[in-house]
């Protein structure tokens, strides 16, 4: 049973990566744009060239990128490249490889995202449980309307508001970027503090609205636990409030909450990418934004693919952890 469960999850993982790679390959080609010709013509125009010789250059580059071969052959080459994690070159800044750009920007995104998601999940879950628990302090109940409102606001709009209030009006925090321009990334205390200062606003905007999301889900679960047989039994046994709360309520309500975590990862990530754009944070969201503006195909494809890989792997790992928290899951032969 156990093996079958893992096998099913693994198939899903491979399927997702394959679908993403295929979409990645075919969608841009459906549009019928010719990025290389566009780029060359644009460069020629910028340099004040005459357009002679562009045709040959287009063909040369097409040969170099393998774009002169039949489509199916390109497709298989692409799948092979994906398998080896070879994402090709960036068109907009040619000699640089997509993977180099990603290697530079991914740590920023991962750092921002992992910290905020873990924090939001933890805080939101506990808040939600308190909100749904009838014996929790009155004060907590007042948090419900603001949390509900915040959870309905898109991350990046909250980001814009925070940016305006705290960075522009009050001048408490930096306006953009991941560190002060002119400083060089190293591991000195000053630089780390600088990075932290720059990440406060982006992190807060993700945190504020996702805490609400987790709290609402957890609250609904906690409320539905009320009146369950095992709760009545535990109360009848005379267990004290905290024991009930931590061992009976939270443990049981956490199960669907963990599933939700796996499902929400993609959404959280989409939102976080936009937040990066708002704050010009040096992560992949900002890179993606510039790539879109310059029609840098390979860059866009590389980002889409690596993000999908990241999310699927995270989901896969969550799927593997889930049966440890809830053993019933492996016995359901779906």
């Amino acid at each position, binding site marked *: 049973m156990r093996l079958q469960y893992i096998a099913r999850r693994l198939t*899903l993982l491979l*399927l*997702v990566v394959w*679908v*993403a790679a295929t*979409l*990645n390959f075919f*969608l*841009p*080609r*459906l*549009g*019928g*744009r010719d990025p290389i010709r566009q780029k060359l013509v644009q460069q020629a125009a910028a340099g004040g060239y005459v357009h002679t010789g562009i045709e040959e250059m287009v063909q040369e580059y097409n040969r170099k990128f393998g774009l002169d071969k039949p489509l199916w052959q390109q497709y298989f080459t692409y799948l092979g490249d994906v398998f080896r994690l070879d994402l090709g070159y960036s068109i907009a800044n040619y000699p640089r490889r997509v993977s180099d750009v990603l290697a530079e920007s991914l740590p920023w995104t991962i750092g921002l995202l992992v910290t905020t998601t873990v924090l939001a999940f933890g805080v939101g879950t506990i808040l939600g449980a308190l909100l*749904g628990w009838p014996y929790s302090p009155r004060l907590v109940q007042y948090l419900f309307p603001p949390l*509900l*409102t915040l*959870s*309905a*606001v*898109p991350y*990046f*709009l909250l980001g*814009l*508001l925070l*940016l*305006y209030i705290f960075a*522009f009006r009050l001048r408490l925090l930096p*306006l953009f970027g991941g560190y002060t321009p002119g400083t060089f990334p190293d591991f000195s205390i000053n630089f780390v503090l600088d990075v932290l200062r720059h990440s406060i606003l982006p992190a807060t905007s993700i945190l504020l609205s996702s805490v609400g999301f987790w709290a*609402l889900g957890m*609250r*609904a679960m906690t*409320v*539905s636990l*009320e009146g369950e047989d095992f709760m009545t039994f535990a109360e009848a046994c005379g267990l004290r409030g905290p024991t009930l709360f931590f061992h009976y309520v939270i443990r049981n309500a956490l199960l669907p909450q963990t599933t939700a975590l796996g*499902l929400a*990862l*993609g*959404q959280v*990530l*989409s*939102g976080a*990418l*936009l937040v990066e*754009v*708002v704050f010009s944070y040096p992560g992949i969201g900002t890179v*993606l*934004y510039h790539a*879109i*503006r310059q*029609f840098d195909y390979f860059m*866009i*494809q590389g*980002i*889409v693919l690596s*993000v*999908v890989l990241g*999310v*699927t792997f995270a*989901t896969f790992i969550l799927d593997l952890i889930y049966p440890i928290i809830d053993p019933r899951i492996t016995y359901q032969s779906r």
Partner: protein
Amino acid sequence: MWAYLRRNPSLLLGLILLGLVLAFAGIGRLVWDPSLAAPLSALPNQRPSWDHPLGTDRQGRDILAVLIVGTPLTLYIGLLAGLLGLVIGTILALLSGYFGGIIDSLVRTLVDVGLTIPPLLVLILVAVSVRTNLSISQMALVVASLAWLWPTRTIRSQVLTLRERAWVQIARLSGANHFQILFFEIVPNLFPYLTATFVGAVASAILASIGLEVIGLGPIEANTLGMTIYWVSYYAALLHGMWWWFLPPIAIIILIFVALFAISAGLDEFANPRRRRAV
């Protein structure tokens, strides 16, 4: 109706807020000149004044007129995409939940795979590959291309439980064919659930469309709320302190989301009375 609304404050609140937004757009169109929303129709970068209650932007649009024109456009994208998502989702859910078998495993895998991939990224691929200058309706189609995934999953699980109910069994024993069972026994009972799913789908479609517009993949020539935010970031209105340019559209967007959220929470309670206290 009124008596029910009083017992369901979240639905009431949502409807009131949505009504406010609609009233703003509707009445605004009557008392204010929508043609001022075009670029160069006023002096650029004006602070709010009697001539332009919400000021003007860098390209000489009157912000009030932009909002009056843009709010219905954004709502339209959400409604169209949400509706398409709901219809496709319902059909797929009925097919897979009711008939089961190969269709079911196909649809289920498709939805599982689709929901794992971050939606915004696929939409970006779609929007980049479609030629530039999307129209409003094309924008809705782009968003709708993923809007059916979530409805399919939730409605399918609902169909699964309905399929086993006693009245469906009786209909089957009475010799009703699949078509009759689906449309006279199952769909009517699915109805409250469908409305709740619909509102959710509209909200996520609006969110997706604004997300696309903010990174510049929206209908460039239209004044939707998302495009207004795009111009705000394009011209760095924030750094020029032009609060009248970005605060009002953000306020309207937040109002729309809170309204839709409250409505869907209220409808959820209507569809599923057991969740009385759960939101």
